[in-house]
């Protein structure tokens, strides 16, 4: 069910109304949210709902076993029953045998009893395997809980990680690696291996909910979080529909406590929630979908490009198309996130910020603190730091950065272009570290030459410039955008949009900055350079193959000419992007989460009207899929 569809609007209105009717019973609200979330996901394909339930029960079990040492019989029974029921319902029941409708204005349900059960043997084999697995696990469980505590904790952690990654690996990467291995063997040996791919369907949102459930278990293992004893609580955390299929990848420490207390929503929450939804729809349906038209028409001729494909002579058109894709992917993803946050806010929940004006980043490190914050912080906390982070020397740090970004690229999709995109970002992160290190040493040297007395202070200041990668190992409090705070074990990306001002090398502690214009100029150049580096990465991300990348680069650098088609692309960029760029620039200047804060009512009214009229008149017809649904 797409956020930008009538079906979702009807679904959400019904859910929201029922939800607030139950406002005095938050546990029943949680149940309602759970059913709504399962319906939301099952609307696409009910079979894959089983994967969410499987991941839920797996991590519920592992977390309790890690922390408490064991699960009670009742807890195990409930979890086992939940899992088996889900397997039966999702895989064993043929929902097409049920027909709900109205007969003579009365609701009626007709059942084709002969076809109620699914007839495919493969599905029954899976249900049987689930049943056997449950029985074997319950039989072995007492023995597992008698392991030495450290071994037990590691065993259940490994079980969660291995099984979650196996599920993700099979559904997302099996066909990709099988096809790649096949073509590699064929090109090297010349032998044809036959077709090894299985045609596996990629479940929507699997990359998101698998990472989310894994983070829950890992945080319990690290002692940052108490595991939940209620399987429904873990279930609704995993499946919470606003952020289920395309993030943000929420942390249990932030989201789960919100399910454990009554939610309140005042008029300000409703206003900001509605604004986030409207703005998210604007980003998606007006900006992103219209940019997609010029991007797709520019890239389409190169879908089967090879070395013989002619290079276009109007390179500036291709450059503008890459800018358009940069705006498209940002608005598509940020639009989804804003709708998710707005939807959650109307339900009384706070979901983390996922973007902080990423195209104003000045360096690669800054970019990854602003883009897809939930993923980058997840990779930092659960991959980069466990690999060693920057604690074992410079070369190890570089290796860890590249590995993390490579896997981050692979997370986005099963294609070598995504891996290359990840590698590209890994490379520029390493390059930035090298340059920053050299700059730091250079700055210290200059200070020593110019002002030997102030050199020590400058050294400390310069240290802060490259201290972004340093991780804290203590417990810190992080302020949430909703005004509360949560404790977490690692320094998380700030959830509140800060007033941005980074320390410049020309700043002297305790003194005035005499270089205001110069620093603005330097910042502008840095932003411009970083934006173009990111665009180069987007070319790798969007291109159908490497030949397309080569064609685009040759055209842009060797044939930077204008054409009437370039004018069309520029017009699209300006016409559909001006309001978005203006409001984002205002947001950056004011440092507020939403642009409407603290504005007079008349200005807010007009902004609302322009956004609504744009949705009515300028949006692309037909609900278009979100890009990140494919991940």
């Amino acid at each position, binding site marked *: 069910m797409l956020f930008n569809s009538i079906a979702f609007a009807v679904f959400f209105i019904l859910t929201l109304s029922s939800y607030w009717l139950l406002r005095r019973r938050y546990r029943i609200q949680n149940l309602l949210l759970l059913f709504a979330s399962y319906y939301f996901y099952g609307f696409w394909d009910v079979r894959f709902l089983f994967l969410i339930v499987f991941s839920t029960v797996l991590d519920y079990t592992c977390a309790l076993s890690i922390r408490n040492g064991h699960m009670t019989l009742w807890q195990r029974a409930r979890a086992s029953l939940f899992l088996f029921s889900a397997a039966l319902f999702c895989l064993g029941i043929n929902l097409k045998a049920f027909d709900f409708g*109205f007969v003579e204005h009365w609701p009626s349900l007709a059942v084709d009893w002969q076809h109620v059960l699914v007839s495919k043997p493969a599905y029954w084999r899976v249900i049987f395997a689930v049943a056997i697995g449950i029985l074997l696990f319950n039989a072995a469980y007492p023995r597992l809980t008698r392991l030495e505590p450290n071994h037990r904790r590691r065993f259940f952690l490994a079980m969660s990680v291995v099984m979650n990654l196996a599920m993700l690996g099979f559904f997302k990467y099996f066909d990709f690696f099988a096809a790649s291995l096949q073509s590699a063997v064929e090109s090297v040996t010349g032998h044809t291996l036959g077709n090894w791919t299985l045609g596996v369907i990629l479940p929507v949102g699997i990359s998101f909910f698998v990472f989310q459930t894994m983070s829950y278990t890992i945080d319990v293992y690290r002692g940052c979080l108490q595991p939940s004893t209620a399987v429904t609580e873990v279930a609704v955390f995993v499946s919470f529909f606003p952020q289920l299929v395309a993030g943000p990848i929420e942390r249990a420490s932030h989201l789960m406590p919100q399910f454990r207390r009554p939610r309140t929503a005042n008029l300000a929450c409703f206003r900001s929630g509605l604004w986030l939804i409207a703005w998210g729809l604007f980003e998606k349906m007006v900006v992103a979908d219209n940019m997609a038209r010029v991007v797709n028409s520019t890239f389409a001729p190169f879908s089967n490009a090879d070395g013989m494909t002619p290079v276009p002579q109007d390179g500036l058109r291709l450059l503008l198309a890459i800018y358009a894709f940069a705006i498209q992917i940002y608005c598509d993803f940020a639009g989804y996130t804003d709708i998710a946050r707005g939807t959650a806010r109307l339900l009384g929940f706070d979901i983390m910020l996922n973007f902080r004006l990423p195209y104003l980043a000045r360096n690669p490190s800054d970019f990854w603190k602003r883009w897809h914050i939930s993923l980058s912080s997840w990779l930092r906390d659960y991959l980069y730091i466990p690999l060693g982070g920057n604690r074992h020397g410079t070369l190890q740090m570089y290796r860890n950065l590249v590995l993390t970004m490579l896997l981050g690229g692979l997370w986005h999709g099963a294609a070598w272009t995504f891996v290359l995109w990840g590698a590209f970002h890994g490379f520029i992160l390493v390059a930035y570290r090298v340059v920053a290190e050299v700059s730091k040493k250079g700055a210290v040297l200059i200070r020593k030459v110019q002002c030997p007395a102030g050199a020590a202070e400058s050294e400390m200041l310069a240290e802060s410039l490259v201290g972004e990668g340093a991780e804290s190992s203590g417990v810190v409090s992080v302020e949430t955008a909703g005004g509360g705070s949560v404790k977490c074990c690692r320094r998380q990306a700030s959830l509140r949009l800060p007033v941005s001002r980074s320390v410049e090398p020309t700043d002297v502690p305790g003194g005035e900055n005499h270089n205001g214009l110069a620093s603005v100029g330097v910042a502008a150049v840095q932003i411009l350079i970083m934006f173009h580096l990111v665009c180069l990465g987007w070319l790798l991300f969007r291109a159908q193959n490497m030949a397309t990348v080569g064609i685009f680069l040759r055209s842009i650098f060797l044939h930077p000419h204008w054409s009437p088609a370039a004018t069309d692309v520029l017009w699209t960029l300006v016409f559909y992007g001006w309001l978005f760029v203006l409001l984002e620039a205002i947001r950056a200047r004011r440092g507020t989460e939403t642009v409407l804060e603290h504005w007079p009512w008349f200005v807010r009214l007009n902004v609302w009207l322009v956004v609504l009229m744009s949705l009515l008149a300028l949006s692309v*017809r037909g609900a278009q899929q979100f890009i990140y649904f494919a991940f």
Partner: protein
Amino acid sequence: MRFNRSALMLVAKVGTGCVYFLLVGEVFLRFFSPQLMLPRYVCATDYGIRGNTPSQSYWHRAPEYRINIRTNSKGLRADGEIPYGKPQGMRRIMLLGDSFGMGYGVSLEDTFLARMVDSLRAAGVKCEPVNLSVSGFGTAEELVALQEEGFRYEPDLVVIAWHATDLDDNVRSNLYAIEGKELVRKNKTFLPAVKSREMLFQVAAFRWLAIHSHLYCCLRERSAEVVKFKIMPAMRRLMDLDSPESELTDEVAGTPSMYPQELAIALLSEIQRQCRLHGAELLILDIPTRHSRTEFQSTFPSDLLDRKDVFHIYSPIADFQRLSGEKLYWEKEHGHFTPLGCKIVGEGLARSVMEFGLLAGEAM
């Protein structure tokens, strides 16, 4: 007293807000997204389907053109009256189609029917046009219109303008259906929103809005899309009504059903049978879908392509491709023919008439 004042203030605020919204919306659309002002004047005919409102003169405004449309006292797009009986020695060419047939986007003399008649006259054929097209028509409605009204004009040649929307429109109208391989009439009427429209158009302010307000046109278009393609099919499915939309998908395979094509074939066959009974020839114009200025696609039911000897079909794709890059369709409205597109189609139709010998016999 306090209550009345605060209630009045609230009403005044809401009222002012609404008026402000309407004004801002209107200004926004005129600057950023001028709407297609294509008012449709349709009414209910005596024979249960839509027809053009008689004796009307109104303007169509789009970013690319502005044209005037006039209908005579019988609702035909024409500048004068056309008697049922035709003059001695005159051949009558009757066109039945939708907005393409009506000539949306072009003046009367630039319609492809007019161009066709001009070309035939230049070739020495004494003929006159009769345009029974109505915007929104499908093949089913064309058959009904032909039977109830069209044959009164004693046409010698009937031209059916086939368009991509006809497949679904024939199913949706539910005027005819195929039962046991036979074409049967299912419903006597198909008047989608006609009655409500007639009622609203009696209000002068509403009529003025329909003609002049971009905001009204935008809201009307969006709501029509939502109602036609989302709400009505969902309601029919839920109410378990004899849902024509259910015929659009194969329930078992979940693939597009062949029923719309079968229904279209049956309707065209019936039209041909009726034409033969009334001594008229039939020519089908296959209006292609435009993908770009150089790419066009036929949506004609593929089964019929093998039966060209049964139906006379003219497809202008080859003629369009010879003019590669020219603007043959309007690009900022619903995609109707430009005057150049109409000229090509009209000349092509005239050429087909001559090649197939459709007006070769003596005039009746």
